């Protein structure tokens, strides 16, 4: 019953995270409490961003199948959650299709986990 999945390279996940975080209305991608504590304690050096891929999960079953992208984000309170989620989905789909046009369209799931 164990499905074999491939996780995307960190660089690609980082690209997706940057794309999602750049969408208006996104406060930040969802780092868990442990991620927050870890980043606060480890104090990453200049030029690093701690755990840049927190809030993004990206897997596929094999090399030809489309990426399944899960994004967890915290939205700004003044925005409509649905509008932000749609904009993030569209931006990520657009980015992945632009970078890897030969690959199948990804399946992007967006979950709003908080509003600040």
């Amino acid at each position, binding site marked *: 019953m164990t499905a074999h999945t491939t996780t995307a390279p960190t660089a690609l996940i980082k690209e997706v995270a940057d794309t999602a975080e750049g969408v208006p209305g996104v406060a930040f991608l969802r780092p*868990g*409490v442990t991620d927050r504590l870890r980043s606060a304690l480890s104090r990453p050096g200049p030029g690093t961003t701690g755990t840049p891929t927190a809030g993004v999960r990206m897997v596929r079953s094999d090399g030809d199948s489309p990426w399944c992208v899960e994004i967890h984000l915290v939205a700004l309170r003044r925005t*409509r*959650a*649905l*509008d932000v*989620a*749609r904009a993030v*989905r569209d931006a990520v789909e657009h980015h992945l299709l632009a970078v890897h046009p030969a690959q199948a369209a990804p*399946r*992007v*799931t*967006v*979950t*709003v*986990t*908080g*509003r*600040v």
Partner: protein
Amino acid sequence: MTDRTDPPNDTSAHGDDELLPCGRPLSQVWDDWERHPDDTHLHACPHCRDAVRGLDQLETAVRDLRNEEADSALDTTTLTRRVMDLVRLELRPGRPLPLGGPAEDLWVMEAVAARVLRAAVESVTGVRAGSCRLRDLRADETADGAMDQGVAVCLDIHAPAGVSIPYLAEQVRERLLEAADRELGMAIAAVDIRVTDLVPTPADGQEGGAR
């Protein structure tokens, strides 16, 4: 070891008190500055003047800090509440609930949606929101295989006494649906409202406050 902040080597005569080069203990200089401002030595002695200046700076800094804390008390409360909100969300986020249309793979966590809806409900004068549970009807497949769309809300409220309950419930339902659409973009299929308590209206005139 000449820095004045270092503890003196010999503290036997004055305990922890620092002895100034002029021979006066620091505590006495500070005390005299407040009790005997006319003391000519305080004004003539450079060591005592330095000590008093340091005390004055310390007092000013403390006073500024105290004023700053008083001014920012509200901000601190808000910040604390937001931090705790995030921590609670991490601990009890609830289940994901659908946003938008049935074919969209977009979600919001139950705790986030419930907070929005509870706040909207409490904008009705005199109403306090209690438990607010949300259920994804898509997950509830009926016996004949059909599926309902949207989210069902089960809401407990405390209502102000002396107000028509059906009228109040309608107000609450309207605010809730409006917030669900405007702030979340969530399709609400059903709203069940349970009035769990009637709260006396304040004597200063909140009558008819369910408007």
